[in-house]
């Protein structure tokens, strides 16, 4: 345990002083702040706006802090969907060279000849990565909330604070998931280039293309057309959503959107008429209900994080250390 702590401290110091950390932090701050300023503009103009959709999106007195994260949109992207894409990249960057870089640099055999258990190394690295991700994400979210307090002038409610905290936790878990995956590659693969060239395409595939593939597949299994009944369309939708759930990014989006939008009651229930929309708007879910909705998504992400870490752990522990 003490060995892991030493490794943890060293890795943490390494991450914080690394260029990649600074670059990722800069990107997440630039994007996050841009979104929050757009959000604040929208929120401020909403009471006087005649734009119906904007009014619907921003209702003044409820969950205004949560709106900070979703209202500001650039090309149909909001801050949450940006995180859904960007957090995996952070995770990959902190995990892809965890073990194999030590091997190629010749540090591994030197470290393992010290009186520490072998798992200290991988545990220390894993928790240092998780901590770094946690610090990055919570710092930007706290900054956004801080700007919100300054701009809006009302303090956040306790429920909002709670939801934001859970939101942060989901982001961290999601980042850790990707770190676990790329760490697995770093254990299996000898070269750091190979492990990053495996992790990045998987990220691109799951984040950008899986939705399209899911759509195509759902159209194959449950075709819809002009004559389709509501049941047909619903079936198509259900299949589409379920296939999309293979992608952790989709699970993350589902979980965070329900959490951040208390008015969104179920992922499958999309407002179909203004009437329905109005009903939804003013009947937000309680936090318990929101959590029940997102629990499965959360459990799956956590489970896979643990599975990936466990596999890397076992492989690393069993690996023969060779001198060359």
């Amino acid at each position: 345990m003490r060995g892991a702590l030493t490794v943890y401290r060293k890795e943490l110091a390494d991450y914080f002083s690394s260029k990649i950390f600074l670059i990722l932090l800069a990107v997440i701050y630039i994007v996050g702040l841009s979104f929050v300023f757009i959000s604040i503009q929208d929120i401020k103009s909403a009471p006087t706006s005649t734009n119906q959709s904007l009014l619907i999106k921003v209702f003044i007195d409820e969950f205004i802090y949560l709106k900070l994260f979703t209202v500001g949109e650039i090309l149909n992207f909001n801050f949450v969907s940006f995180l859904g894409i960007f957090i995996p990249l952070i995770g990959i960057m902190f995990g892809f060279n965890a073990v194999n870089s030590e091997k190629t640099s010749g540090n591994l055999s030197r470290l393992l000849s010290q009186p520490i258990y072998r798992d200290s190394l991988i545990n220390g690295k894993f928790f240092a990565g998780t901590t770094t991700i946690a610090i990055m994400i919570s710092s930007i979210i706290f900054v956004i909330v801080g700007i919100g307090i300054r701009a809006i002038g009302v303090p956040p409610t306790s429920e909002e604070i709670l939801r934001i905290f859970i939101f942060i936790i989901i982001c961290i878990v999601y980042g850790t998931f990707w770190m676990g995956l790329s760490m697995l590659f770093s254990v299996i693969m000898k070269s750091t280039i190979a492990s990053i060239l495996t992790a990045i395409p998987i990220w691109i595939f799951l984040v950008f293309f899986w939705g399209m593939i899911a759509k195509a597949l759902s159209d194959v299994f449950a075709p819809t057309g002009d004559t389709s009944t509501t049941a047909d369309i619903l079936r198509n939708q259900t299949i589409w959503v379920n296939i999309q759930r293979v992608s952790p990014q989709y699970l993350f989006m589902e979980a965070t959107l329900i959490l951040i939008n208390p008015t969104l009651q179920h992922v499958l229930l999309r407002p179909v008429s203004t009437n329905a929309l109005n009903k939804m708007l003013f009947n937000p879910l309680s936090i318990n209900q929101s959590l029940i909705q997102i629990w499965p998504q959360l459990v799956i992400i956590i489970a896979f994080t643990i599975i990936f870490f466990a596999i890397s752990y076992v492989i690393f522990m069993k690996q023969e250390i060779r001198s060359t």
Partner: protein
Amino acid sequence: MNNQDIKKNEPIIIAQNLTKNYNGKTVVNDLNLSVKKGEIFGLLGPNGAGKSTVILMMLGLTEPTSGSITIAGFNSTREPIKVKRITGYLPEKLGFYEDMTARQNLKYTAELNFIPQKEIDSKTNEVLQIVGLEKNKNQPVSQFSKGMKQRLGIADVLIKDPRLVILDEPTEGLDIKIANQILENISILNRQKEITFMICSHQLNLVQKICTRIGIMSKGKMIGEGRIDHIGRGLFAEGKYRIDVELSEVSKAVLNKIRNIDKVISINQNENLLEIICDEDVRPQISKVILQSNILLTRMNIRDSSLEEIYLKYFKEE
């Protein structure tokens, strides 16, 4: 600590019937080895003889297929942490964190050995002084030359106050001057700090001069163990000595006289050069005979030929 119980000249490393197979290929084959405390033991052999594998098994980084290895009474496979607490290891492919300074690298090693925080600084300075890098301690390792890295490696090993230090190819890729400096350092440490050293190398000529005893490995087997002169004799002349004598002229009489010396087995004459095979070192008797015969002695030496022959036979095979 248990290692204190081991007195000088008692074995600190004991390997018994050590065997290791990698994917069906036997890398180490029924190896027996014993290294005494206070020795500098050279485990020599060509590349691929299985030396590194033996080291990895000593440190518990690789499990032997069969057989056992103990270091200071601790079983390497079952109690690797205890072994690693008293054993320093300098790997063949040595690496440091390039962007960290020499001092930071050593500090990390010290922390991994749980050296108390307040002792780390003085300890770091001490070991850097030993290897002569105290001026470079705040320089990032990326600026270090190969020789400096190797010296830093030795400092890194020393920081844990080891009883036993295992060096894997410590002179590989270094120019001869620096290699000799490092070997010199090792020899001094052995005397001053009473650290037992085990040096693995394929550079027989370079390394053997500081070794008190060597073992020669070839194809996973230990083919000879002991003092270098004895080993050669054991391997090549079946325990016999060979003395080369060059004379100003060779007469029948002197040949006969030499032949009559006790323990001399045969003489091979090549013009003025005699190759004398004998059971013991009979150089004094030979010189006496020659002087009595009024012949001038040009040259006489007992051939530690074994070294060259060992080299040619086992090290040049690849």
